[in-house]
């Protein structure tokens, strides 16, 4: 399809909840250091797909997978899941800072939760760097020891982004990160995502096609557990190859 380096590659990848097959033989190559959006009607498996990438899916009782999922040509499912999750950050639908931790504690949770001790200078550096990258530093630098629950919804979500960045991941997954936010907060998060792609491979699940158009370089369209179409965003939205895609983006269903 193109000559970009591949960050994540799925080969005949399927996933189940009990007997129900949620993902059907997905083949996709996600290019590195770009934003890839996954769109599709609800229940199409888009969230399940990103949860398979960082192996959260398997924590649900009865969940299973088959096929291969590669991260820079290393099989995700042949690696230590905890290491994989540290390499692949995730931002969830609703902001979920840890209520028992301070703002600083939240950003650095990836280290404390893995019992990794840092030199205090390293700690400061990573903390500041992550908050700066998440465009939150100026707003919280004076209240790093306050609880995260004091922040607004949009700030909390950026705090969660800083938390994901702090672990120095290669890939960051966003699972409908703006669905609980107002338009202004949404705008800030989208701007942030566009900035982050210079350093990270980003996959964003969204039910909002305008959002995909605004932030994504590539777009994948999922329906009923199948990957219908995957291409450059502009192409998917202006000149889709499949009629199903066209029906969806023109709003004829879903």
């Amino acid at each position, binding site marked *: 399809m193109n000559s970009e380096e591949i960050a994540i590659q799925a080969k005949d990848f399927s996933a189940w909840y009990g007997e129900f097959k949620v993902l059907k033989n997905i083949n996709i190559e996600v290019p590195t250091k770009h934003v890839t959006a996954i769109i599709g009607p609800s229940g199409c498996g888009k969230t399940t797909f990103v949860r398979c990438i960082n192996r959260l899916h398997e924590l649900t009782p009865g969940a299973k997978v088959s096929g291969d999922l590669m991260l820079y040509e290393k099989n995700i499912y042949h690696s230590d899941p905890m290491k994989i999750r540290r390499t692949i950050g995730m931002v969830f639908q609703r902001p979920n800072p840890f209520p028992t931790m301070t703002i600083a504690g939240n950003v650095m949770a990836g280290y404390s939760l893995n*019992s990794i001790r840092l030199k205090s200078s390293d700690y400061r550096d990573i903390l500041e760097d992550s908050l700066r990258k998440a465009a939150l530093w100026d707003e919280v630098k004076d209240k790093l020891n306050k609880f995260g629950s004091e922040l607004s919804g949009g700030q909390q979500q950026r705090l969660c982004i800083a938390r994901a960045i702090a672990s120095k991941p290669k890939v960051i997954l966003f699972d409908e990160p703006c669905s609980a936010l107002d338009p202004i907060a949404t705008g800030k998060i989208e701007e942030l995502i566009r900035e982050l792609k210079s350093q990270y491979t980003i996959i964003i699940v969204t039910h909002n096609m305008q959002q995909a158009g605004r932030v994504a370089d590539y777009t994948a369209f999922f329906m009923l557990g199948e990957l219908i179409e995957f291409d450059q965003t502009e192409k998917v939205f202006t000149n889709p190859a499949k009629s199903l895609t066209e029906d969806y983006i023109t709003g004829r269903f879903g």
Partner: protein
Amino acid sequence: MFYMRSDKVFKIVLLVFGFLILFFSIGIFIQLSSSAWLSIKQNGVSFLFKSVWDPNKDVYGALPFLIGTFITALLSVFLSLPLSIGTSLFLSDYVKGNFSNIISSLIDLLASIPSVVYGLWGLFMLVPYIRILENWLFKYAGFIPLFNSKPYGVGILSATVVLLIMILPYSISVIKEVLKMVPDDLKEAGYALGANKWEVMQKIVLPYIKSGIFAGTGLSLGRALGETMAVTMVIGNRNAVPTSLFDPANTLASVIANEFYEASSASHVSSLIYLALILFVFSFLVNFTMQLILRKINTGMIKK
């Protein structure tokens, strides 16, 4: 690798505790059966139907205690029913907010007061009044078989009243939980049709929570069956089949509490443990059934 190892340890430790609990409940049954074995061999099943319990003559029959247990338990549960249903309705539909919460916590307090304190209070404060009531009933209604024995104060009636007070908070808390599951739109539909409060309660709410009331009553029955100290202190401790509500008697639990530490012969000890086994089986059956019913109610509501 440290993380993986601590996770494995974590999982195994939890599993061990889970298994321990599981084995424990089976272990109880085995231990009681083996300790009671001597008496089971000697008396067999007819133990349940023999009406004489006389350790001095080495004769053991459980009938007086079975009757004592079931009369006090069933009677107190039966009498508590209107009170607990009424109170639950009051708390869920008749008053709101803080007031309801305060009364709820007061009723919860009833459950936290130690059994031995109920017994003390019952023995010194309740029994004298019950004796007056009994004397009055004996004088004017003595022709009724239930009231035709000489009143002592301590006895079946006193035990029933104390039990009644003690089980109230248990049935109320279960019924309150089920009342929460009654969908508001059902009630609103009732009001919209012009029904008044009581009619909505009677025609819509009560039928909806029938099985919940049953489960709540059953759980309090389980409580009443095994209640020991308070009953021991007010029931009069007589090892004979009671013939009236005024008779002193004994329950399975109270006779064990009274005689176990002074029992010297092996057959006496073993017969008391036989009683404990019977008590265990009964309360197990009652609790098990009620938990299953409650679980059905819960899952059924979720599906709706």
